[in-house]
């Protein structure tokens, strides 16, 4: 039986965009990327935004995650209107509530996997022991328990992306944003990454918003938004039972 908060979370979207407009100006050229886009993203789901490159999906992700300001409209994340927050408050919001996974893994060459994950945690004001316990748990969850002491140069691409996911996951964020997380990986590794993201949404109740043009991902998402020219063309739910991979090969 669903609890009251579970019902509320399905009623209250974790992310909402209302008539969002965003344009880029380069010299005299003005490109309207998002033109009055409205959208709601639910918690505990893996939502995939797909579309050809240049369709504005990355900009949408930047806008919804508070990394980029909008020209007009409103973005509500966990009930906060991001446009109302100043730079400091936005940093604080991201520190407390959001995780990011990027196409490039962006790991510090000097740190081992464990330290990569621990680093942002130590800025969240938690104790060293707590940070270490979380980092360990999170790396175990992505199947890297035995690779914790290795530096990025000693890890494969798929392992690096899993470290990046562990780094985001260890913060236990309500919102997890992933930008083309599989495009630098081969099929098997890409599959594993999307499985992990999917599992995070379901087991942690995290709102996972993934942007990708990788067609392999479509069948793994709970919801697929197809985007073109700054508009949502279709909004489709996958009702087919999604089989979580029970084991992460490593």
């Amino acid at each position, binding site marked *: 039986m669903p609890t009251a908060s579970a019902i509320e979370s399905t009623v209250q979207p974790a992310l909402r965009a209302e008539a969002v407009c965003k344009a880029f100006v380069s010299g005299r050229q003005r490109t309207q990327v998002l033109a009055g886009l409205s959208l709601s993203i639910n918690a505990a789901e893996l939502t995939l935004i797909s579309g050809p490159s240049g369709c504005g999906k990355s900009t949408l992700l930047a806008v919804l995650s508070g990394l*980029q300001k909008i020209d007009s409209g409103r973005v509500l994340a966990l009930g906060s209107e991001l446009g109302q927050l100043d730079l*400091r408050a936005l*940093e604080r919001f*991201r*520190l407390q509530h959001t995780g990011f996974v990027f196409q490039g893994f962006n790991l*510090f*060459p*000097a*740190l081992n996997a464990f330290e990569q994950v621990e680093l*942002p945690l130590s800025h969240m004001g938690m104790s060293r022991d707590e940070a270490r316990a979380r980092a360990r748990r999170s790396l175990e969850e992505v199947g890297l328990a035995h690779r914790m002491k290795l530096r990025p140069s000693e890890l494969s691409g798929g392992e690096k992306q899993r470290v990046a996911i562990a780094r985001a996951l260890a913060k236990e964020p309500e919102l997890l944003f992933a930008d083309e997380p599989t495009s630098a990986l081969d099929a098997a590794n890409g599959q594993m990454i999307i499985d992990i993201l999917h599992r995070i949404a379901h087991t942690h109740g995290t709102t996972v918003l993934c942007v990708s043009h990788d067609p392999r991902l479509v069948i793994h998402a709970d919801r697929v938004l197809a985007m073109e020219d700054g508009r949502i063309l279709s909004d489709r739910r996958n009702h087919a039972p999604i089989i979580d991979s029970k084991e992460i090969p490593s």
Partner: protein
Amino acid sequence: MVALARKTLIYEWRRFLPAMLAVGFAGLLQLLQIALVLGIFGSTSLYITGSSADVWVGYPGTQSVGQGRSIDADVASRILMDPAVERVEQYLWVDGDWRGPRETGGLSVFVSGIDPSANGLMFSKALPPDLRQRLAEPDAIIVDRSDLQQLGVSLGQRATINGHAVRVVGISKGLRALGGVNVLCSLETARRIDNDPTDNGPTYLVAKLRDPAQADAVAARLRGDTAFGPYTTWSASDFASRSVRYWMFDTGAGAGVLFLAGIVFLVGAVITSQTLIAAVNGSVLEYATLNALGVGVAALRRVVLEQAFWVGALGLLGAGLLGIVLLLLARSQNVPVVLNLPAALACIALVMGLAAVSGLAAMRSLRRADPATLLR
């Protein structure tokens, strides 16, 4: 807290090496320059630092030891009236024209006429007692070993100063002067050499106190009495720094030192900041990711500053070690080098300041670590 700055510095040491070298060499250059200047200009206060007098009495307005003017010898009785004073002796400075046994051309010498008795104050630290004794002999002089070539003379030979015959009875070391040659003799000999009719007293009176710690207070209280003609007093340390200051700043040498320090700082800061900027740029995606995850820009700036600090500290360590070796080498080769605590601290401040400025410059390139650029 994960020590990102230090771990990156160790892991990517090749990237930071140019900055450490720049900082190190800037520090080394500065250190050697200061040591040389202090060594060379320190010799201008040799007359004071090489003697055991606590208070100096001389003509008012005297800017350095070599520029004294004669005072009334009777001032000595006024000085001796002070109960703190134990002993007073005369010191006569005469500018002389040297003529050696070999042809040397015009050579100006600084003749120091001192009390040759065993408990004499002047040059008591620079002159061994046996050499000092030999000065009691009429027309006896002592010169520095390193000046023999210049004077064209050797031990036991005769020469003339201001047309007056003298004989070299001893050769000492550590008596080198700046801009001339020091010649030591007794007060009597110096008076005979002195052919300036306006000189009718000693150039200085030097006093030993019962308690040397009182030097400043005694010098202050002996000042301002004009009953014996014009004179003023300084504590020895005051007069020594006055002499060094005169040479450093009124001769333009100090300005040269400061100018070179500025150049060293500038060149060091340019190289160091460029290296640190390159290091920041090399990690800009990682920094941007941390910022996306909510780690504040202020925390990222601290990482860059900490890196600058370590670059400075390591550069300083290298400069310090190499500097000590070079200074010891210089000492062994009779090159006048002196390093004191304030000078060493000034070097450290300059190097760390250089590192800090470079760190601040590198911090600016963190502005490129905008997480929005990670989304393409």
